[in-house]
C-alpha cells in the first residue's frame, strides 16, 4: 500500500507468465481475473502471498498467479495451507480447488479449519462435475444428472457447499459467479480481509461437460444479489435459509460475515507460545532433562 492508501499493485502484477490451458470459455478464466483484481485491491506484494491448491482443472490456478504456489495432492489443499500459515503467520494464504477436491476427498478437512478459525481464504470453483477426468459425477452434481458414471441419472442428493460450511460455523461465507466479475472480485477481497476462515463458492461453469443449465446464460436468469434483497450478512440463520436455495437460485454476495470474529488459531498459538515461554527450560538445557546424572 502507498501512503495515500491506494494500492500500488495492478491486477496484471499477479498474472504469471504461464498461459492457462483450460478449455476456451471455462468459468475459471473469470475466477483467476477476479483473484488478480482482489489481490491488487489488497495490495500485498506477491512474495507475501501463498496460493495452495489440490488437483483438478481449477487447481491449476496457483500456476497462473504470481505468488508462492503449491499445486498439492487431491483433496489436501487445506491441511497443507494450514501448515504453511502456521509456519509463516505473516503470509497471506489462499487455498483453491474444485467441488470434488473440496467436498469429496477433501471434505473432512474443512470442518477442522473452520473450528480452528484458520486465517485462510478458501475459494471453491464449483462446476458440479469432475471435468479434468472427463465428466464423472461430483459431490455437487444435481440429483438425476446423467454422466458417464451415472448413465441413468444420479441417485444422490448433491452436497450443498454453502450450508455445509455455515453449519460448521464458518465466519465468512459468500458466493460469486462469472456473471458478475466485479462482484466476484469484491467478494474475494472481502473474504481475504476477514480475520479467519473465509469460504467463497464460485459457480464456475464447465463448458465441456457441464449442462446448459450450468452455463453463464442460464446462471444469469437465476442470479440474484443478496444485497438487492436486503439480506443482512450478520444474520447466520437467514444465511442458512437462503443457502438452501443452492441449485435453484444463484444468490451472489456475502451470505454470512461474523460481526465478532473469534481469535484465529494463529493468534491462539502465539498466545500459548508466550505463556509457555515463561516457564520454559532454556534451549541449551533441554538435553539435560533426558540425561541421568
Amino acid at each position, binding site marked *: 500500500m502507498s501512503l495515500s492508501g491506494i494500492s500500488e499493485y495492478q491486477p496484471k502484477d499477479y498474472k504469471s507468465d504461464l*498461459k*492457462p*490451458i*483450460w*478449455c*476456451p*470459455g*471455462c*468459468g475459471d*478464466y*473469470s475466477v483467476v*481475473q477476479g483473484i488478480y*483484481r482482489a489481490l491488487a485491491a489488497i495490495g500485498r506484494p506477491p512474495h507475501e502471498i501463498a496460493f495452495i491448491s489440490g488437483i483438478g482443472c481449477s487447481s491449476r490456478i496457483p500456476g497462473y498467479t504470481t505468488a508462492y504456489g503449491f499445486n498439492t495432492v487431491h483433496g489436501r489443499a487445506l491441511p497443507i495451507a494450514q501448515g504453511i500459515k502456521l509456519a509463516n503467520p505473516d503470509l497471506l494464504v489462499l487455498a483453491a480447488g474444485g467441488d470434488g477436491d473440496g467436498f469429496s476427498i477433501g471434505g473432512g478437512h474443512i470442518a477442522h479449519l473452520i473450528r480452528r478459525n484458520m486465517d485462510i481464504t478458501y475459494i471453491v470453483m464449483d462446476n458440479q462435475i469432475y471435468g479434468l*477426468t*472427463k*465428466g*464423472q459425477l461430483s459431490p455437487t452434481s444435481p440429483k438425476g444428472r446423467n*454422466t*458417464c*458414471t451415472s448413465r441413468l441419472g444420479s441417485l444422490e442428493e448433491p452436497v450443498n457447499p454453502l450450508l455445509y460450511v455455515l453449519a460448521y460455523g464458518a465466519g465468512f461465507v459468500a458466493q460469486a459467479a*462469472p456473471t*458478475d*466479475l*466485479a*462482484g466476484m*472480485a*469484491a467478494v474475494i477481497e472481502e473474504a481475504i480481509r476477514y480475520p479467519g476462515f473465509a469460504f467463497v463458492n464460485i459457480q464456475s*461453469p464447465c*463448458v*465441456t*461437460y457441464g449442462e446448459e443449465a450450468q*452455463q*453463464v*446464460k442460464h446462471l444469469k436468469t437465476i442470479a440474484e*444479489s443478496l444485497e438487492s434483497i436486503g439480506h443482512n450478512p450478520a444474520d447466520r440463520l437467514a444465511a442458512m435459509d437462503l443457502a438452501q436455495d443452492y441449485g435453484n437460485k444463484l444468490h451472489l454476495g456475502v451470505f454470512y460475515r461474523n460481526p465478532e470474529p473469534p481469535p484465529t488459531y494463529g493468534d491462539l498459538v502465539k498466545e500459548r507460545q508466550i505463556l509457555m515461554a515463561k516457564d520454559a527450560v532454556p534451549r541449551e538445557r533441554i538435553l539435560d532433562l533426558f540425561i541421568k546424572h
Partner: protein
Amino acid sequence: MALRGIDPAKQSMMDALDLAILVEEEAQERYLEFALQMEQHRTFEAARFFRQMVENEAKHGRELAERRVQRFGAAPRTVTRAMLFDVEAPDYDAARAFMTPRQAMEAALACEVKAQVFFDGALPMLKDGEVHALFEELRDEEIQHQALVRAELDKLGPDSGLSDEDFVDEPAAQ
C-alpha cells in the same frame, strides 16, 4: 447487472466519457483473453479475428481518451472498472474450443448488439443534454460496428458443417 454504483441520471460528461473508455478497455481485455485462449488451443483463425477486435476496441478507446484529456485534462477519475461489468465485453463462456471464424464473429456481433442495447436503454434516464448526445453517438457507433462485423461475416465461405460435438471425446468411465 452492467453497472454498479453509477446513477446514469446524475452522470457528468467527464464520468460518461470515463465510463465509455472503461467499457472499451474491458472489451479489449476480454477479446485479448479470447485470442490467447484460441492460440493456446491452436484455433488460429478465430484468434486472428479476436486480435482484430482488440485493435478495434483499443482504437475506439484511444479516441475517447483523447477527447477526455482535451476536455477535462488529468482530473481524477471517479468511475472505476469495479463499477461496470460486461457492457460490451463478451460473456466468459462465449469462447469455445475450436471456434470457427463465423462463431467468433457471431460472438462479437452479439456484443455490439449488447452494447447498443445498453446505451439505448440508458438514454431515457439521462438528464444532461451533453451526456445524452454522447450516449446517442456511442449507440450509433455500436450500430456501425455491427455493420462492419456483418460485412466480415458475409465475406466468409460456408462453414465445414462440423459442430463442437464432433470434437468432444467420449466420456471415460472409471
